[in-house]
């Protein structure tokens, strides 16, 4: 089968002075178009580093990333990132934050009016059109992350990279945003790679869950298919045996076989 996004034998070593730390070792992963894949692991296992490599923000020491059979090694709008702490520019309004990327990506393919409409369309997708003239400091954390998602979506990325997008949010807001992302995925059919440390979030949202062993030299320990039909409903899944089984598998992996040693 033709792989859409392929992580090919990725190693990553950090060198500081004389000390070298191997963070990632031999990461191989292929992701199909439209697939929703989560990467889960304990903190410090290098999952954010892996996402940065895919985004092109960090270079791999060995191996590389192939998107539609072409190597990508620098950042670009085809792999838009939703950052953990939203990273909206505080001096721009919500509208301008989204427009920054749109103006760049569609500079030659869309007219000014079309770009404006496209920004509003994407703000509408995340239900943030009402706050288009507000500044990031004037809206809540969940709203900021919505805008972050709109900014990434508006670049029409081939792969959407989510770096613990809900990590900084309270539980209710998080659930709300998870549902939004699920609906958007259903509607737009994006290919999504998400970093998370939340087992429920991973099972609820993903088609496949990639479980990473603890660092240093973190590897892919196990890949779990989540055979649950979409659209998924949070409440119905709570008692679904398939859901519980998947959840159990991930929990076993994280807390029995690869316990976080330093946490004890």
């Amino acid at each position, binding site marked *: 089968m033709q792989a859409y996004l392929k992580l090919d034998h990725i190693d990553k070593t950090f060198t500081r002075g004389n000390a070298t730390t191997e963070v990632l070792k031999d990461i191989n992963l292929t992701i199909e178009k439209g697939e929703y894949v989560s990467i889960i692991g304990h903190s410090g296992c290098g999952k954010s580093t892996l996402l940065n490599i895919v985004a092109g923000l960090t270079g791999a020491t060995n191996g590389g990333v192939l998107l539609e059979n072409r190597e990508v090694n620098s950042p670009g709008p085809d792999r838009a990132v939703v950052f953990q702490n939203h990273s909206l520019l505080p001096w721009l309004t919500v509208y301008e934050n989204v427009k920054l990327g749109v103006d760049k990506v569609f500079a030659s393919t869309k007219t000014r009016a079309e770009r404006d409409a496209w920004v509003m369309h994407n703000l509408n997708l995340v239900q943030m059109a009402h706050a288009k003239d507000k500044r990031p400091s004037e809206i809540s954390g969940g709203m900021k992350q919505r805008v972050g998602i709109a900014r990434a979506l508006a670049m029409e990325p081939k792969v959407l990279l989510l770096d613990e997008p809900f990590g900084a949010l309270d539980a209710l807001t998080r659930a709300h945003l998870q549902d939004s992302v699920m*609906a958007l995925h259903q509607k737009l059919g994006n290919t999504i790679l998400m970093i998370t440390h939340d087992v429920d979030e991973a099972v609820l949202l993903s088609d496949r869950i990639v479980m990473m062993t603890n660092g240093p030299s973190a590897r892919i320990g196990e890949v779990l298919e989540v055979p649950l039909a979409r659209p998924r409903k949070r409440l119905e899944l709570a008692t679904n045996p398939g859901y519980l089984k998947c959840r159990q598998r991930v929990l076993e992996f994280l807390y029995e076989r690869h316990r976080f040693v330093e946490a004890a």
Partner: protein
Amino acid sequence: MSMPAIKTEATAVAVPTSSPTAPAPVVTMTPKQAPRAEKYAKMAKEVAARVVPPLIVLALLMLFWELVCRRTGSTLPPPSRVFKDTKELIFDPFFDNGGIDKGLFWHLSASLQRVAYGYSIAAIVGIALGTLVGQSVWAMRGLDPLFQVLRTIPPLAWLPLSLAAFRDGQPSAIFVIFITSVWPIIINTAVGIRNIPQDYRNVAAVVQLNPLEFFSKIMIPAAAPYIFTGLRIGIGLSWLAIVAAEMLIGGVGIGFFIWDAWNSSHISEIILALFYVGIIGFVLDRLIAGLAKVVTRGTALN
């Protein structure tokens, strides 16, 4: 379309959280539009709270000064004498009898003009050099030690050298203003650039801003609070330096006016000039602070 699914979820979550708080705003809405006069009274009270204390302190100081300097044989004139001696200068700042016999307005505007030239050059050069030093590790290693040494040289120490180079008072004074105010601008800009969060750089990288766009859309706004700190320190220093420089180069200017008054023993005129220098220094500082507020749109600390 799966949007309805989101919507129902939204309301489902929103209803229980908002219902207990909903009646509260309704109750508070009614008195909100009530008396306008009350609002003005409150505003006046706030202004008074800020203006009255300094006025009282000023009045007390004036009284103290008057009492101390009233005695015969006092070396400095009391405020009443100062006012009597300088009445003409205060009420007619625009006279021009040719040469250096001009009203205070002309002296002050000549000084302000020099500051405007020197400071504008300092702002442009300072922000450019600061950006370079903040962005490039090698530029920092090469230039920073130099800056740290040069910035400690007192402004007036540059004056003979610049007179030798330019052979004229006007450009020398402008150069002294420039060299005085450029250091804080460079150093603060560099700190601001170095402190740009990696997140913003990542955003710029993903969006693929080119270096010019990165400079104008990310660097300058992100570093603006720091840059304006430098600009504010710079304008203060340049106003400090101009008075001293003008005492030495002569011609028209508030610094020379003070020196001239001293040479002709017009102590009252010196005091009046100091008063103006202080007020204008304060206004310049407020001006830059106001500009900072407008440019950073109050998001400086976010």
